[in-house]
C-alpha cells in the first residue's frame, strides 16, 4: 500500500477521526504489520482521536464565537455589539419615585443637596429594600412650613457597584446591584 502523506482531520465526529487515524497509520511503513483492533493499540488510538476531537471542537467554538452572526454565548454577542457602539440592555433595578421633605435645623439655608448614592430604606411586610439616588439632587423649593421639598424624586433599588462612562458620547450608566 502506498504511504499516505496526509491525515484527514476535517471532521468533528469521534469515530470518523479514529477511522482516519487508523487508515493513516496503516499506510505508514512503521505500522504496516500492526493490528489496529488490538486492545493496547486501540487505547492509544482512542486517546489520539479524543484529543483530536477536543481540539476540533474547541477550534470550531472559537471560530463561531468570533462572528456576531454565529456567536452563541451572550458574552461574545455583547462583546461584538460593543464594537458597533451598542450597549445591550441588561437587568435593571426597580425604580421608585418619592416625594421628599427636608426640614433644615437653621433658617438661613438656601438649598439642600442630596448626594448621589444616598441610601433610602423601605419596608414591605418583613422585607426591607434599599434604594439609592442616581445623581446629585439640589432642592431649592420651600413650602410654607420652611421645609425643602421635591416631588417624584427617582430612586433605584440596590447600591452602586461601578459606573461606566463612554468616552465618545459621555453617557453615564449606573450599574445597580439588586439584593
Amino acid at each position, binding site marked *: 500500500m502506498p504511504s499516505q502523506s496526509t491525515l484527514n482531520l476535517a471532521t468533528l465526529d*469521534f*469515530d470518523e477521526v479514529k477511522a482516519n487515524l487508523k487508515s493513516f497509520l496503516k499506510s505508514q511503513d512503521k505500522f504496516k*504489520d*500492526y*493490528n489496529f*483492533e*488490538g*486492545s*493496547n*493499540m486501540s*487505547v492509544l488510538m*482512542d486517546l489520539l*482521536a*479524543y484529543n483530536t476531537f477536543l481540539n476540533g471542537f474547541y477550534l470550531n467554538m472559537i471560530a463561531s464565537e468570533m462572528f456576531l452572526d454565529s456567536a452563541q454565548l451572550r458574552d461574545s454577542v455583547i462583546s461584538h455589539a460593543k464594537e458597533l457602539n451598542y450597549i445591550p440592555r441588561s437587568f435593571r433595578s426597580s425604580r421608585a419615585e418619592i416625594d421628599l421633605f427636608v426640614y433644615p435645623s437653621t433658617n438661613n439655608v438656601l438649598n439642600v443637596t442630596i448626594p448621589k448614592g444616598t441610601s433610602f430604606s423601605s419596608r414591605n411586610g418583613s422585607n426591607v429594600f434599599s434604594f439609592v439616588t442616581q445623581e446629585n439632587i439640589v432642592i431649592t423649593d420651600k413650602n410654607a412650613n420652611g421645609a425643602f421639598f421635591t416631588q417624584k424624586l427617582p430612586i433605584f433599588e440596590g447600591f452602586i457597584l461601578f459606573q461606566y462612562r463612554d468616552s465618545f458620547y459621555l453617557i453615564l450608566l449606573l450599574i445597580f446591584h439588586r439584593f
Partner: protein
Amino acid sequence: MATQVTRADKYTQVPRSSETSSDFHVDLDIHPDTLDVLRLTNENAVKRSIRNLLLTNNYERFFDPIMGCNITAMLFEPVGPAIEQQLKTTIETTIRNYESRAAIEDITVKASLDENAYLVSLKFRILNKVEPVSMDFKLYRIR
C-alpha cells in the same frame, strides 16, 4: 555467527507461521536488538485484549460507556455464589460483544472464600484456529 544455508534447507518446506493479530506490550517495551517496540502476536494478543476488557470499567472509554466489565463493583460485594454467576455472565457478554476474535467454549468462576477472591478459568477458540486456548486468573480486590 552466520549459519550456512544448506541445499536441504533451501528446498525443504517449512510451515509458515501466520500472524493474524498483533499488539504491543502495555508498557511499550523495546526489543534490545532491533530497537523496535516488542509485539504480542496471535494468541497472546487476544489474551491481552481479553485481559484489558476485563480490567475496564463502564464509562472508562471515550464515547463507549458500556464497554468493559464493571468487575470492580462486583468484587466489592461479599463473596458468594450469586456474584459468581454475575461474574460469569458479565465476562461472557463482554467477550462476546467486544472480542470478536475469541469464541468462548467454557467459563468457570469459583469463589475462594478464604482468599476473598474468585478463580476464573476461561477456555476459548481463536478465529480460524483449531487449538483451544485457556486462561486462568484470580480476581480479587486490591483496596
